[in-house]
């Protein structure tokens, strides 16, 4: 943010037209979520009325209790929380250490290793899905266990690259050299210099990782069952019945999104800064 404020370049000031167009854009962005709230607070017959209802009703609490009564959403929420929490802690830690190594340590093979990390970001999930499933089901016997979701996600290329980009500029080489002179081990440098400096990026990465893990659908769909679901699986199950109660489906969508929406509202500003910084640093 400080970067944005200290810039000396001037900008054109927005006129009414700009505000109007942006206002429409934000309305379009928010409308589907607002409408989910409307539907989640009404009955199925009410949302199938023409012309449609556009204001929230009074059945939100009733619908929420219904969804929890009809599905395993409670178990699913606990599962998703455990998975997303563990994955986030692990990714933030491994990415910070690895990113520090790439950004600030000198070692043989650094260039090729970094290039290979970036290259792995291109590989689609589908490409390894069967062997991964076979490994989990037949070799490790982890199918339908949470570790099948946690372990493969415990470290990733995006996080490593993200932390490297940040630490390149956030940790001055002089500070590290001075630490070395005083006899600090690498672990000491990590503890006393890197972790304090990396904290803002760690919280952004943590948030992004948590959201991605919470929202993941493909791999949980393959390796988990409805006996031990994640939130997204329960949600898709809720919607797969032949005759659907849409107000309940959308209540489920609302409940499934709630933790991420709340976190976004609390941390949104940092997340935006994180995304924008990632864009400018090559």
């Amino acid at each position: 943010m400080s970067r944005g404020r200290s810039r000396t370049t001037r900008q054109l000031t927005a006129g009414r037209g700009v505000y109007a167009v942006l206002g429409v854009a934000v309305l379009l962005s928010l409308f589907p979520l607002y409408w989910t709230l409307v539907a989640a607070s009404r009955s199925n017959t009410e949302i199938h009325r023409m012309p449609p209802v556009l204001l929230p009703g009074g059945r939100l609490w009733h619908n929420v209790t219904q969804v929890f009564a009809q599905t395993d959403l409670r178990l699913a929420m606990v599962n998703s929380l455990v998975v997303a929490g563990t994955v986030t802690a692990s990714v933030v830690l491994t990415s910070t250490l690895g990113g520090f190594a790439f950004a600030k340590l000198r070692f043989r093979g650094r260039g090729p290793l970094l290039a290979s990390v970036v290259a792995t970001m291109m590989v689609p999930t589908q490409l390894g899905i069967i062997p991964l499933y076979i490994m989990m089901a037949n070799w490790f016997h982890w199918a339908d266990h949470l570790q099948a979701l946690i372990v493969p996600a415990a470290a990733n290329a995006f996080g490593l690259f993200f932390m490297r980009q940040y630490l390149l500029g956030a940790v001055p080489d002089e500070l590290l050299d001075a630490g070395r002179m005083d006899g600090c081990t690498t672990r000491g440098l990590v503890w006393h210099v890197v972790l304090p400096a990396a904290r803002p990026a760690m919280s952004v990465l943590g948030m992004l990782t948590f959201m991605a893990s919470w929202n993941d659908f493909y791999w949980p769909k393959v390796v988990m069952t409805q006996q031990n679901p994640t939130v997204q699986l329960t949600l898709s199950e809720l919607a797969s019945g032949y005759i659907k109660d849409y107000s309940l489906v959308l209540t489920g969508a609302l409940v499934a999104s709630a933790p991420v929406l709340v976190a976004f509202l609390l941390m949104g500003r940092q997340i935006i800064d994180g995304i924008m910084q990632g864009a400018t640093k090559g």
Partner: protein
Amino acid sequence: MAASTAAARGARAPAPAPAPAPARTAGHRWHRLDRTVSPYLYLSPFFLVFGVFGLFPMLYTGYVSFTAWRADRPGSQGRWVGFENYRRLLDDPFFWNAVKNTLGIGVLATLPQLLLALGLAHLLNYRMRGRTLLRLGVLLPNVTSVAAVTLIFVQLFGRDFGLVNWFLSLFGVDHVDWQAGTLSSWSAIAAIVTWRWTGYNALLYLAAMQSVPFELYEAAALDGASRWRQFRSITVPMLRPTILFTVIVSTIGALQLFGEPMLFSQQQDPTTGGSQHQFQTLALYSYNQFWGRFKYGYGAAVSWAMFLLIVLVAAVNFLAARRMRGAE
């Protein structure tokens, strides 16, 4: 390039060894060990996880694609058939249908998304009040899950009681059965993707726009260039690296579409991508081969073909963008 800088750094590093050090203590040796081993130690979790759960399965899929393995036929696991699966792929109308759908939805989802993002970023770049709030507003869709968003849009795109059809009916447009048609289902799925990703891309563009020097615009204005001309001749060229990046990333994302078409389907088997396979993407088709038909060998070939297509399309995009730069 990274390698050369690493080498340069290495050369610049003060050489610790040649100093006269007859009484090297255990502490010294420990220190040197620490410096050589620590980097690899810190990187090992990623390479371990990627090696075991990323690279190995990927290569194994490659191997499986050359076998006749069917999960429902014991003993077929190791039966080597060479390129047979790939040859059959070329004659498979459903495969080509999936290729067509994937590319069609990809274009419909990527092009408007990036153009809208560019326009949105341009507007967000004005000096204004409430800019953080506006940015939060456009990014919010991005943090919602594919599953939740798709179910919301399924309702919005409902044939009889959907808000989209109701809105269109205000303009005299008859009820559209969004799931049934090819173009209509592609558009609806593309709308889901566009809704989720436009704001994210707009923020990437905005970041790049903020590093364009204002003086360029001032000079252009003095020369009598219109706003539109400035946008086309200054903003867009300065943003080219970012545009290239977003084109590649969103293309890769679009070619892997899975959750959206799967949950958009109202069929009994959601992996068919609609009654006429009208929106069955490659990811859905490979999933269908694996878990619906247990054809592991054939499904693996579909997955590898999909990967090759991604690499091909990404390379074409890259070269096209490079040539655009060369032409100016």
